[in-house]
């Protein structure tokens, strides 16, 4: 039997993979994918808890997160494209002009 704890454990694992990916990877596209991973980990947790408590709130929020994630990807990829055009690089460490 697959218990809610399993889903939560999977969610935590996905989130940690995503977080570590954001922190250690330089390729902007990979960083993006890791962000998606974290969002989906959160979605999984929402849905799991919604099932556990028998409410719909968590499921509705999961939809909102998906919408936000889709919008974010659109804007993010557009920025990424223009940066790549200008600098011939998709590394997040190369885009460091906005600093002290």
């Amino acid at each position, binding site marked *: 039997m697959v218990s809610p704890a399993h889903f939560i454990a999977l969610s935590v694992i996905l989130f940690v993979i995503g977080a570590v990916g954001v*922190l250690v990877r330089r390729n902007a596209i990979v960083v993006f994918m890791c962000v998606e991973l974290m969002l989906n980990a959160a979605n999984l947790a929402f849905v799991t808890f919604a099932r556990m408590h028998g409410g719909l709130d968590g499921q509705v929020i999961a939809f909102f997160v998906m919408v936000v994630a889709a919008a974010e990807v659109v804007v993010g990829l557009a920025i990424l494209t223009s940066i790549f055009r200008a600098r011939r690089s998709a590394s997040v460490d190369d885009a*460091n002009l906005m600093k*002290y």
Partner: protein
Amino acid sequence: MSGSAQGALAHPAVAIASLHATGIQDAAWLLLAFPLLGAVVLLLGGKRANSWGHLVGVAMPVLAFAYGVAAYVQMLSYPAAQRSRDLVIFQWINVGRFHVPLGLQLDQLSICFVLLITGVGSLIHIFAVGYMSHDPERRRFFGYMNLFVASMLLLVLADNYLALYAGWEGVGLASYLLIGFWQFKPAAATAAKKAFIANRVGDAGLSLAIMLMFFQFGSVSFSGVFGAVGSASHGVVTALGLLLLLGACGKSAQVPLQSWLLDAMEGPTPVSALIHAATMVTAGVYLIVRSAPIFNLTADARLAVAIVGAVTLLFGAIIGCAKDDIKKALAGSTMSQIGYMMLAAGLGPAGYVFAIAHLLAHGFFKAGLFLGAGSVKHEMSDEVDMRRFGGLARVMPITWVTFGLGYLAIIGVPPLSGFFTKDPIIDAAFSKGGTSGALLGTAALLGAGITAFYMTRVMLMTFSGGRRWEDGVHPHEVPAVMTSPMIVLAVGSVAAGGFLILGNRLLNFLGPVTGVPPTSHGIWTSAGIAALALVVVGAAIAYALYGRREVPVTAPAGSPVTVAARKDLYGDAVNESLLMRPGQWLTRLSVYFDNRGVDGLVNTVAATFGGSSGRLRRVQTGFVRSYALSMFLGAVLLVGALLLVRL
């Protein structure tokens, strides 16, 4: 104070109900309107008024004088107790319980001043037509002079202290503008500033007095203040008296605010005659006599007034002895004579009338002397050093005679003015009794002798002896437009004193306003005879020194006293060391404290924040992943904190 003198202090003016001006007096605002109109026309008229401006400038004071005579004649038709008439021009200030009407008070005291200001003022205006005839700015000069006359009339006609103060400041402004009339001369510009600043010190005293009056009595009108002053505490009355004295010292060039008057001689000579001899500088005496109900209640303030007067009369006389500049010698004499008036005013009802009598007589003979000095200066190519004069009696006979009559009047030769008006002051000072009376009387007596010395010196150095003129100077008698005012003033110098004093004319006239002396000693008093003896001695010494010997063209080294007197008895040095230097130290200390203390504190705080934020901004590396890490750590901290609170 002795008991009998205290009894005489009750002030009659308070008891007199104020009556409204009627008839001719109902138009008393004309007195202010004439000279004010003249000032406006002349100052705003521009160059197109140049050709006829001086005529307007002369006509206005003459018209005011004619009106003043008419108002005086009407006043004489009233019984003595009903001669004080009020006229409200308009409500000036109407706020809450603070009501100040711009009101005029025509009474015996103010009409004396009106006649003096407009009468002597008109004569000096006429003289100035000739004296300033070569000056391209003559129109502006007359504009300022009319402004002065208007302000001075407001000063003496006001029925409250606030309007008096407005006139007081107006004459200060006119004095400043006229001392600095030739502002292209640095000395004149400096002298004007000096006069203004010294006057400001006195004005501060007067304005504080007015504030104190309003605070204590809720009123600044003469009737309101004098009605309430009887119930005020002794400390308040004395403070009022001393503050008014400070104001009087500034305007009347009394010690310790005397230093500006000698420098004020940089102005054109008609200005010296009108403002710095006959009228404005006597405003302090007017203020004291007008405030008689206040001074009657405080023997301490009266004594302070008398001491200031006695010190100044000696101070001015000693300075007058050493000056070679004819105008400065006369200026020292003015200080000295006003010292006599202050001394008399400080004696209370025993001296008020004599102060005013001497003031009026002084207005004549000192204005005459200054006009004489002006015509000499005019003919000597603006030379004022008496060591460069000499032997002018033959070439300028009219000036010589008129100046000589003024000279005899000021030293107090009977039966000229000074004899009648100065000797009662000396007598009244001795009559005060006690140590203070003896000291004040001795000072006044000595002053009479010194006056005779320095005035004889001026007379001999200017008009007698050999001709020590510079090359190319050809003096002649001045034109009639200048001699005729001098002749009229000389007649006044001869007759005014006797007219005022004989038969107690002024005493009976002014009595209802100022109170009368408790006792009368007649014309020939022992003090007066002693003064005459000293006058003879002083004149004889001056003759021995300056009449029998030839006067050297360059001043000899002189004794330490002479050197000190040439330097105005170190009046400027005292001001510099007591006020200017400490003031500058205070300024420097304040600047240091401001830079190091206030700015230091603010700057330290700013530098601390600036430095720490400079270090803190290094966190903004520009690397997205470091931001992500800090966000991650922040989230962890937040979650940790939440868990900690939960547990």
